[in-house]
């Protein structure tokens, strides 16, 4: 009995040790081993390491915060006594001694901001003991626009420093260009979402209004109901705040969409719904299921098909929710679908699918793209997996 007891102690101790080990490995910095090669190689490693530490903050663009966090690394890269980063309007950060110079910097770099050319100047300090006699200012340019300057100070003129400052500035520029690229990519995705929202409108709005109009005389009550559904649906689709929603809200909007579609197709379309209530609070990107349902409706009623059945189910799968949208319509050639999802489809078909796939991958990672099973005449089955929690994803 005690033997068994000791075994338990050992197991628990091992667990604790394993946890500590894991933690330690994550937090510890790699030890400097003696095997770093020649002094030159060592210096190269040091420089590259410093540069790589300075890079991440700069990827956020040239702001007070990013400048503050990278300035120290940049100064140690240049080996100067003081370094100053400015944007077009003022000093962002002063790193090193003698920050009383900060007051005059903007006057001195005005020319650099104007012309975009490197300039060296005497620092003209009132304080005779001040070690910073000389400075070189280098512009930070992105796409031929001068965003700011990097000013390095030294006790005396130094051609080496001038050249080094130029190189470091160019390196910073590359980082800033990457930041710009990041920003434009996000803007592109936002534009895509807006385009997707706009894409719903024309056909659908026209068809819905036509369907509602057909009820106005025969069944005014029904027409009124449908108009209210329509109003609710468009309000949800065109809402301007938040990139995320909850599964409950998204399904609600899908319900309104289907009510409008059924007003048009009547008995030809039947819908089955199976939802595990546990997954309704799951947060997901805004309007990422509605296009799939729209796709199912389109495929289901395409061609000479007389009637179509659509099944929408949402299941609880541990730490994920699984949403499946299935239709028994005409299906699609898998090869063609592959082209569409690669963005080579041409035309407007499948833009909705492509867009949803891309957004899911962007939010949750490449493991969470759409899974589509289909064949010609075999209907289509789309599976979406949604993690119940992902940092930064909050349903609103």
């Amino acid at each position, binding site marked *: *009995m*005690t033997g*068994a*007891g*000791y*075994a*338990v*102690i050992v*197991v*628990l*101790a091992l*667990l*604790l040790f*394993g*946890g*500590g080990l*894991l*933690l330690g490995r*994550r*937090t510890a910095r790699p030890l400097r081993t003696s095997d770093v090669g020649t002094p030159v190689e060592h210096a190269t490693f040091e420089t590259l390491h410093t540069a790589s530490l300075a890079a991440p903050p700069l990827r956020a663009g040239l702001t007070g915060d990013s400048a503050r966090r990278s300035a120290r690394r940049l100064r140690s890269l240049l080996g100067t006594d003081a370094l100053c980063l400015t944007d077009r309007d003022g000093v962002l950060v002063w790193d090193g001694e003698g920050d009383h110079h900060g007051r005059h910097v903007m006057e001195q770099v005005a020319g650099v901001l104007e012309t975009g050319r490197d300039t060296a100047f005497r620092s003209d300090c009132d304080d005779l003991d001040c070690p910073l006699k000389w400075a070189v200012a280098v512009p930070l340019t992105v796409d031929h626009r001068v965003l700011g300057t990097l000013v390095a100070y030294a006790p005396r003129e130094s051609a080496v420093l001038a050249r080094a400052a130029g190189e470091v500035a160019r390196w910073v520029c590359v980082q800033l260009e990457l930041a710009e690229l990041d920003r434009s990519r996000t803007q592109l995705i936002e534009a895509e979402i807006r385009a997707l929202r706009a894409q719903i409108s024309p056909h659908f709005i026209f068809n819905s209004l036509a369907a509602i109009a057909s009820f106005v005389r025969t069944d005014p009550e029904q027409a009124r109901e449908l108009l209210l559904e329509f109003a609710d649906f468009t309000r949800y689709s065109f809402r301007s*705040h*938040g990139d995320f929603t*909850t599964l*409950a809200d998204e*399904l*609600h909007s899908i*319900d309104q969409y*289907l*009510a409008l579609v*059924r007003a048009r197709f009547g008995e030809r379309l*039947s*819908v*089955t*719904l*199976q*939802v*595990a*209530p*546990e997954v*309704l*609070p799951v*947060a997901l990107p805004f309007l990422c299921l509605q296009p799939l349902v729209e796709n199912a409706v389109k495929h289901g009623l395409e061609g000479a098909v007389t009637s179509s059945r659509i099944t929408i189910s949402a*299941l*609880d*799968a*541990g*730490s994920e929710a699984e949403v499946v949208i299935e239709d028994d319509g005409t299906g699609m050639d898998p090869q063609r679908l592959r082209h569409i999802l690669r963005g080579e489809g041409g035309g407007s078909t499948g833009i909705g699918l492509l867009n949803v796939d891309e957004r899911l991958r962007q939010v949750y990672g490449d*493991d969470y793209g759409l899974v589509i099973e289909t064949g010609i005449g075999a209907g289509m089955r789309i599976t979406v997996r949604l993690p*119940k*929690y992902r*940092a930064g*994803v*909050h*349903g*609103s």
Partner: protein
Amino acid sequence: MSRTYAVAAVAVVVLATVLVGGFGLRISRTTSDFYVASRTVRPRLNAAAISGEYLSAASFLGIAGLVLVHGPDMLWYPVGYTAGYLVLLVFVAAPLRRSGAYTLPDFAEGRLESRQVRRLVSVLVVGAGWLYLVPQLQGAGLTLKILTGAPGWLGDVLVASVVVLAVAAGGMRSITFVQVFQYWLKLTALLVPAIFLVLAWRGDGQPRVTFDAHLSAFRADHPLYATYGLIVATFLGTMGLPHVVVRFYTSPNGRDARRTTVAVLALIGVFYLLPPVYGALGRLYAPELIHGGDADAAVLLLPGRVIGGLGGDLLGALVAGGAFAAFLSTASGLTMAVAGVITQDVLPSRGVRHFRLATVLAISVPLAGSLMVSRVPVADSVGMAFAVSASSFCPLLVLGIWWRRLTPPGAVAGLLLGGGSALLSVAITVSGAVRPPGWPHALLAWPAVWSVPVGFLAMILVSLATPRRIPPGTNAAMTRFHLPEALTTGRQR
């Protein structure tokens, strides 16, 4: 005592759990029923599900056994198990729901923006979950042994395999309804026999139940300290139980999470009135259990003893079915929660196959533990899981929700010192290395009194020492935790 009925009752419960869990209640709806289908789980339903999952072997068998042997002092157990939800209600429920976290590691990552803290919390969740699973399996073994005379390990293995089957087959599709059903089953299984027992007792001339002073003394040689240890552990430990936390995700918003908690308080409050009745009657009708023997068996034996005949057999079968429902629901809830954490944070890539592998892993370790470790009274070993939870997750949740200056290094220090020391004390106690009497044993067996303050202090002091590491998103997270959803999203509905 006829065993046929009891075995049949256990078989029915097991079969129902596998079928309902594995294949799911496949209720299809057309869109006209959409509002029914898309309705989120209502607080009362969710509360019944939480209670169904929460009322474990410790509640069903353990409390009665403890009251029987040690007397009314043991009523602190049901009080503590219930009051934990009060603390949960006041400090944690709504903000936790609003954080959007599904598991405790999710919460840690969302609040502290650190993968390291997340990993550490995952390790502790798995540890606490395993600690809680061991008594569930042992309780099943004990029940089966008493009912059928089967060897003790059979029940452990049976429950473990049923859980693996049900989870691996279908991932417990309609888990909420299964758990709701289990709650009402457990309540009925204790309530109906209790009514008959009390009637029989009245017919018997209402003999007085006496708890002799020398017998009813607390087991520990430092009773006051042990009672405080119990109170601290159960009051503060409930909020960190992994299978309780995940159920709050089902509430649609913070307000409903609070309402759910209130309903849970009512539901388990009613339930906990019953086990002491069994304990007291056991004192009269099964006194031999006091000296040696498995006191945990009192609930199972009483109907046969007091009523006898066919009626006694049927009531005994009902109790046995309820007991198995208790093991199965708590064990499957815990296994799901632990397996979820293992798939997310331990195994390399994700997918359904990994979840099944994780399920096997999640239950096989405690199964091995339950077969190896000597039997500690179930209520005691559950208390240890509470102590670990109280000294690690309670500081993390309370400070994470209510204190802006918490930093990742502070959280790590608190979790390691508080949770680690509690885990170590529990391990030493279970191994039997330090035996009673004496302070060392008391301190190690009821660690919460000192390990909870250690956890809090370590978290606060290290956080204060590392003010530069306050996560940049703290204010945004706090706003989300504490403001009603409608305010933070600006939605009007």
